[in-house]
């Protein structure tokens, strides 16, 4: 079953004198992601992978095209509905060290999504957080530290834990492993696969590391200069 499909997605940037110069960051991309499966998206840096991801999450407005999530057009979603969308699709960033507010303790960072969406009463927070860190296999001692006191791998687990608190159906993983060393990479990827099996999450897995993508993905799309040039 198709969970998310994007149709003819375009993002043009205009720059130069009188906005005459047109840069086609994304130029007519179609993708389809099935429920509980992983779509790998590979390509050189600057080919528009991350832009596609941010458009899907509605962090950037597309110039043209449609995003259909759960058979519903979310391209023009606003207000309350857009806020609820945040519970269903989430993103994990490349650099775990900048993905968390340096002034926020891990405990608060993990609970932040729940607090924003008012999904958990204050007295149940501790219970909930223990469950979450158990899923991602994180030590309880780390909860009351600041992000800079944790390693990259630990931080990426924290990021995953805070996203899982919302029970998303779809996660964009934007080069999640490129800043980690190989051993930790394998751990994080295994964790992501486990979660997929247990919770039926779909991933859009963005990377430029072909080996990793092949291992993670059910299907692979190759992007170049804003277009999908190949399918595997």
């Amino acid at each position, binding site marked *: 079953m198709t969970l998310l499909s994007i149709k003819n997605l375009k993002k043009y940037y205009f720059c130069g004198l009188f906005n005459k110069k047109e840069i086609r960051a994304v130029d007519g991309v179609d993708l389809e992601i099935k429920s509980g499966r992983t779509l790998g998206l590979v390509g050189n840096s600057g080919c528009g992978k991350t832009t596609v991801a941010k458009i899907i999450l509605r962090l950037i407005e597309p110039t043209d095209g449609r995003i259909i999530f759960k058979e519903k057009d979310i391209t023009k979603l606003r207000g309350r509905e857009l806020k609820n969308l945040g519970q269903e699709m989430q993103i994990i960033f*490349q650099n775990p060290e*900048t993905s968390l507010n340096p*002034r926020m303790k891990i405990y608060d960072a993990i609970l932040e999504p729940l607090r924003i969406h008012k999904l958990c009463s204050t007295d149940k927070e501790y219970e909930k957080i223990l469950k979450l860190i158990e899923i991602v296999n994180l030590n309880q001692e780390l909860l009351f530290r600041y992000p800079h006191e944790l390693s990259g791998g630990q931080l990426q687990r924290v990021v995953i834990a805070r996203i899982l608190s919302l029970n998303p159906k779809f996660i964009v993983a934007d080069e999640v492993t490129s800043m980690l060393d190989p051993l930790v990479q394998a751990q994080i990827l295994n964790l992501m696969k486990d979660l997929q099996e247990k919770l039926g999450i779909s991933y859009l897995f963005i990377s430029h590391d072909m080996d990793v993508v092949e291992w993670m993905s059910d299907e692979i799309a190759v992007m170049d200069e804003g277009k999908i040039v190949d399918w595997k």
Partner: protein
Amino acid sequence: MKILNNEINILKEAGNNRMAAIGGAIVIMLTLIAILASLLSPHDPFEQKLENRLLNPCFEYPFGTDDLGRCIFSRLIFGTRYSLAIGVTVVGITALVGTSLGIVSGYSRGIIDEIIMRIVDIVLAFPGIILALVIAGILGPSFLNVVIALSLTHWPAYTRLVRGLTLTLREMDFIEGAKALRASNIYIMRRHILPNCINPIIVLATLDIAHAIIFATALSFLGLGIQPPTPEWGSMLKAGIPYFRISPHLTFFPGTAIMVTVLAFNFLGDGLRDMIDPKINENILVSE
């Protein structure tokens, strides 16, 4: 509390920096003097004893007396209250207003940013003291009007500082992440951007207290600030000018008081900046 913890660490570090420690100690001392003024002063600062006018420093009057026979020592002690009150009030108001505008400006960009920054440019186009003089001149001399005049001239510094920090912060992943969580803009500004701007704001505020005190005493000295008989350092300085040749202590002691206070805040601010500034960027990333 989270933020406070960090600031306590910085204060501990401040202990290692000698200049900052001296500055900090003087600031604490001045604060105590201001609070305990009525206990510390040997005489009533308003009491005139004309038979004792223009006395040189002696045992009964440690800093001598002025042209109306008032104890300069007591007046200086009470003057601490006005200087510190003006410095703290002005910095409190300007830091609050300037920071809010800076965060909104840097975060929203576009037309709002454009409007706020043009207003900042207009205020900065005038030399601060002249603008303050004009405003104080129009409003008339009083404590409140000095605070208004100084606040209106001092806020742009915070707006520019905070706007710059916000512009770098807003591109960082954790802000994108918060947006993906669909946090409201106000939430992001309050919980994510503000806490990461606080260290440089504290440095600027400390240095700004010194600046505000100098401006306030300058306004009083020119007759546009706090009026006699209120024992304010600037107006005491002004009152001493006619007697400069026969009784220099009338101007020497208020002048020294202003200098020491301003230097103390400057030392403290510079010390704090040395601790924070060289790694402002790491400070955003690694808050310690």
